[in-house]
């Protein structure tokens, strides 16, 4: 029963957070010194796209729709929230007219999720393994070296690492491609290898940093857990190191990281945006960047709203998973 109340409470907070975030997004354009519609039209015109008067009018109307400039501020706000929450409709893309913004986002999202999920997962597994071992034998040389490396990797922002990697492996040693070009028919072997090949450096820039973070935190947890009574008891039961680490230390080391992970998602997302842009990787980040460069306001509003909602959702999901993993909360 407590658990249900927790879930309900968390869902209410989630909805409020999303509405709050959308409210921020609604007011940001209205804080600006310029009229965003005219600024956007000027920007589109400056891109050299030829449009006749009717098209300009249609565009102006579409922009006014996106900004929701009709009616009083309160009406505009209501219409804006309703459109995003109920219909998830951001209108047509202006730079790739008339493709709907949602379609572009749908194409980009799997790339971003794939990149983030795979690299986080790889980093997670490696980081747990190394962190656990170096926390178990903290004074061994290899554990000190690993921790040193982790400490030097963790504070580096993703995009800086991405730059470093691309300087090293795309310019100096020309091993990996400079920009992403995906080739091959759907689900063909060629496509898969080309995806892996092209995603390697962007993924590595995320893997390395997240790896550093997990090593540091799992090591700290492990060193603390080693002194716990239940670990000592397990040892006095005659259990081997492997079993003690996997069944007693690891689960207890991972659990507290999960809430921290929820706080990190936003930062991870920020980082992956820039990494995508630097590598021309066809995800949400690149889409946002394209929208900025082309002055495609519909696309910009759509991608940004969706990023914000996606991060809030991911955070909520982690918050909801946490009590399922921790029996002390699940069975209170």
């Amino acid at each position, binding site marked *: 029963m407590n658990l249900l109340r927790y879930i309900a409470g968390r869902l209410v907070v989630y909805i409020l957070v999303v509405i709050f975030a959308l409210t921020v997004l609604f007011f940001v354009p209205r804080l600006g010194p310029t009229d965003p519609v005219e600024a956007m039209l000027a920007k589109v015109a400056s891109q050299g796209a030829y449009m006749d008067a009717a098209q300009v009018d249609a565009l102006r109307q579409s922009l006014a729709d996106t900004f929701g400039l009709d009616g009083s501020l309160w009406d505009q706000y209501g219409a804006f929230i309703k459109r995003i929450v109920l219909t998830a409709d951001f209108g047509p893309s202006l730079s790739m007219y008339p493709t709907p913004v949602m379609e572009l986002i749908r194409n980009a999202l799997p790339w971003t999720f794939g990149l983030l999920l795979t690299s986080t997962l790889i980093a997670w597994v490696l980081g747990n393994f190394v962190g656990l071992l170096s926390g178990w034998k903290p004074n061994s040389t290899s554990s000190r070296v690993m921790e040193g490396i982790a400490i030097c990797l963790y504070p580096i922002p993703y995009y800086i690492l991405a730059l470093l990697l691309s300087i090293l492996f795309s310019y100096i040693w020309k091993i990996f491609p400079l920009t992403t070009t995906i080739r091959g028919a759907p689900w063909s072997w060629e496509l898969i290898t080309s995806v892996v090949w092209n995603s390697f450096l962007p993924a590595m820039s995320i893997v390395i940093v997240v790896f550093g973070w997990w090593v540091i935190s799992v090591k700290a947890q492990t060193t603390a857990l080693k002194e716990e009574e239940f670990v000592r008891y397990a040892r006095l039961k005659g259990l081997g190191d492997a079993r003690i680490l996997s069944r007693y230390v690891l*689960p207890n080391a991972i659990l507290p990281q999960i809430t921290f992970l929820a706080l990190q998602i936003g930062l991870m997302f920020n980082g992956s945006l820039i990494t995508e842009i630097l590598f021309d990787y066809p995800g949400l980040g690149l889409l946002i960047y394209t929208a900025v460069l082309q002055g495609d306001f519909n696309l910009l509003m759509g991608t940004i709203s969706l990023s914000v909602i996606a991060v809030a959702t991911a955070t909520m999901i982690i918050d909801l998973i946490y009590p399922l993993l921790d029996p002390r909360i699940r069975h209170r």
Partner: protein
Amino acid sequence: MITVDNVTVGYGTAGFIKAVDQVSLTINDNEILGIAGESGSGKSTLMRAVYGDFSTGLRIQSGTVTGRFEDARTGKVIEAQSSQFAPLWWDQLSYIPQGSMSVLNPLMKIEAQVVDGLPAREKQGSSRALRQRIADFLAGFGLEETVLDAYPHQLSGGMRQRVLVAIAAFVNPRLILADEPTTALDVVVQKKILLMMVEIQRRQRNSLVLVSHDLGVHYQITDRLVIMYQGRIVEQGPTAEVFANPQHDYTKNLIASLPRLHGKRAVEVVGASA
């Protein structure tokens, strides 16, 4: 079963700090031995030396702790120094810790924690049958089968301690060492658990070593009592005798400080250097 011969145990490698000083002691088959003494008297260190737990810098400086375990079923005899006991843990020897909140893995169900570490001879048969045997065993401690599916935080202090006793006893070992097993509990629960431990020992006819600072506990269940003071054994003998006729000043004070139901305290406080 265990022969402790003139052993000196302590901590540290560079500067050695003695905790147990030239102690000799025998633990016999089929008996309950009590080790009493205040905190810092070396009783827990002695227990760790007997169990063979030489982590965190504990080591034997001189003397020996020798164990001789006879497997009741196969008749095979194993003789070893306590530093070589680790392979015998949860087989020939088991251990009951003080049941604080954190002694059981908070993320593991009780059933798994009973099974984890069991010797092969106790694990035979299907996991269903094993679960049934554990449940029956727990029933003897007044614990329902649902306890097996519980997590440690769902148990009360008394239940947790009973589970710990049951985990150690289910191994069916030749020697059980118990470190302050009832200290954190109220008197009624304490008494119940002590009686269970006696019953288990009588049934399994093995040896039980009970370490406690509480003479009342020793009076209730031990056959033989060892009193430690400042790292040495100051007195040992059958429990009844030690209580009836204490020889050492420290023991006299200990016994004198016990509350009595009838009459005045037996002995006036004697000036032991405590």
